[in-house]
């Protein structure tokens, strides 16, 4: 199966587009802005539906509580800011006001990963999944491209009853998801079939993993590629099937491997069908300034790095 890049597009554009579409359809959708509205994809909604947009200033903890109050009153609030603030500054508010109360709210975690680039370590969300994943009742979506971000955001509104974190990035990345893709929360997409190894990727790393699998194919290695767009609830069946059928797994994410997709997959594997799992991602380290491409290369988040990791795992002698 070949995947066509229909053009590079930032996943945050998908989030922005979905908010406008949903806002037109659903009167009960309300947005809370924390100053950086255009940079996190909320300005389109704000311009079209000013009566349902509330500026809350640079006060993320309050935003989360206000979202809880709106949700308790029957609205579906959306709050979006950089993932570092959306998930980490507000963790206690998310835990108690949103998760313990189990309220349908959408949190947009923008600027995910090191591909944020020159802003540097402070603004690169690399621990958001790890922290939020441990909270009961939350759903975590990490779509691969702009089109899938539209589908994920729609699903966050239409198919959830509790808090949902939608993770997206700033860098323009290949947009390959078909508009009519069936997006089901908790049901991953197997993008390539293969029995030699399984590559499970999320977010921006899905495209890199597709490219890596094509390169591996040329070397006679058939890698299964899974787009794990839902981190929680994770698609256990697909992971267990991969463990049984391909005997080893490599996870690929633009996030710390501690607590992220790698940990998520490993938890499922060790409890169900233990096989070797290797993890590609940020290795307990902060990012730094640089262009997105430079950073992805430096931190080993490219198709080449994935290929090398697979070759090392499958043919350790040849690749010493």
């Amino acid at each position, binding site marked *: 199966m070949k995947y066509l890049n229909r053009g590079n597009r930032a996943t945050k554009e998908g989030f922005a587009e979905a908010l406008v579409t949903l806002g037109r359809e659903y009167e009960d959708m*309300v947005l809370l802005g924390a100053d950086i509205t255009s940079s996190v994809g909320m300005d389109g909604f704000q311009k079209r539906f000013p*009566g*349902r947009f*509330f*500026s*809350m*200033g640079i*006060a993320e*903890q*309050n*935003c*989360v*509580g*206000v*979202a*809880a*109050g*709106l*949700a*308790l*009153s*029957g*609205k579906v*609030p959306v709050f979006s800011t950089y993932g570092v603030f959306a998930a980490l500054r507000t963790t*206690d*508010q998310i*835990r*108690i*006001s949103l998760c*313990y*109360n*189990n309220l349908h709210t959408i949190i947009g975690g923008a600027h995910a990963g090191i591909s944020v680039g020159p802003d540097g370590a402070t603004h690169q969300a690399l621990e958001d999944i790890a922290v939020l994943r441990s909270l009961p009742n939350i759903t975590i979506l990490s779509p691969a491209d702009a089109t899938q971000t539209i589908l994920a955001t729609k699903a966050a509104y239409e198919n959830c009853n509790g808090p949902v974190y939608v993770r997206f990035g700033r860098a323009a990345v290949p947009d390959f998801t078909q508009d009519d893709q069936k997006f089901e929360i908790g049901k991953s997409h197997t993008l390539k079939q293969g029995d030699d190894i399984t590559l499970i990727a999320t977010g921006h790393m899905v495209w890199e993993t597709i490219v890596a699998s094509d390169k591996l194919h040329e070397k006679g290695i058939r890698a299964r590629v899974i787009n794990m767009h839902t981190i929680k609830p994770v698609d256990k069946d697909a992971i267990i099937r991969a463990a049984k059928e391909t005997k080893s797994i490599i996870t690929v994410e633009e996030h710390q491997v501690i607590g992220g997709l790698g940990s998520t997959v490993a938890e499922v594997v060790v409890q169900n069908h233990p096989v070797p799992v290797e993890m590609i991602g940020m290795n307990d380290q902060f990012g730094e300034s640089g262009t997105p491409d430079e950073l992805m290369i430096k931190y080993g988040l490219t198709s080449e790095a994935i290929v090398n990791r697979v070759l090392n795992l499958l043919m350790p002698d040849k690749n010493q």
Partner: protein
Amino acid sequence: MKISNSGLPDLRLISKEIRKDIIRSITSAGSGHTGGSLGLTDIFTCLYFKVMKHDPVNPLWQQRDRLILSIGHVAPVLYATLAHAKYFPVDELDTLRKLGSRLQGHPGRDHGLPGLELSAGSLGQGLSVAVGMAIAAKLYDQDHSVYCIMGDGELQEGSVWEAAMSASHHKLDNLIGIVDRNNLQIDGSTKTVMEIEPLKAKWESFGWRVFECDGHDHREIIDTIDSAKQTVYKPVVIIAKTIMGKGVGSIEDNNEWHGKAPSKAQLNDFINQIEESYEVFE
């Protein structure tokens, strides 16, 4: 200290029963926050038996006034008040803090207790939620009020002031904050732990209209809320001067009773002290 008679005999009687049930339920639980619960009893009595629009038969009635208890640790006063308001049987107060109870140590909606608006207990979050509810009421064009009960020590949380700023920015005149100003927190007085004065000026500078009242005088509480509700284009806060432990003379105004439960041996004495404090004096 005697409970003053402000000419509302029904409320006086109800508040006495609520106080006694707070003591009974916390004693039965073996743990819980006695001081603040007793200190807020008169405010809760006035709210649920005089001021607020609400319907125990239909707890989710759309037009009801909302009460957000930001300081979840004083859950015993909320539970005892809800029980006396007939949201659930008074007998159930005995299950406080016990396994399987709907009366969690801090309010938890997931356990299905009718009348609970919010699961809360982590300080500094309630006012934000109340702001969200007040915004929603404006969006729906509903005219109910949203009350938020805060502790004075809680005002040391920065998030309270984020919420305060947003309430005045959005002109939420349907929001009424009530600060339980008992001057005490776990480590001692608010003055020594972290000074929050000048409190009135703080709220005013954040764009709120501020009222002060005696938090144990039923007539004054009701009249103050009535005046507060006349305010337009601004949120209102009532700084209610209270005494931690009010009604049980031997523990009044003592921060050691913030989070301490009476022993079984103390139960009768505390109940008697409550009875005595209600003996009419003029």
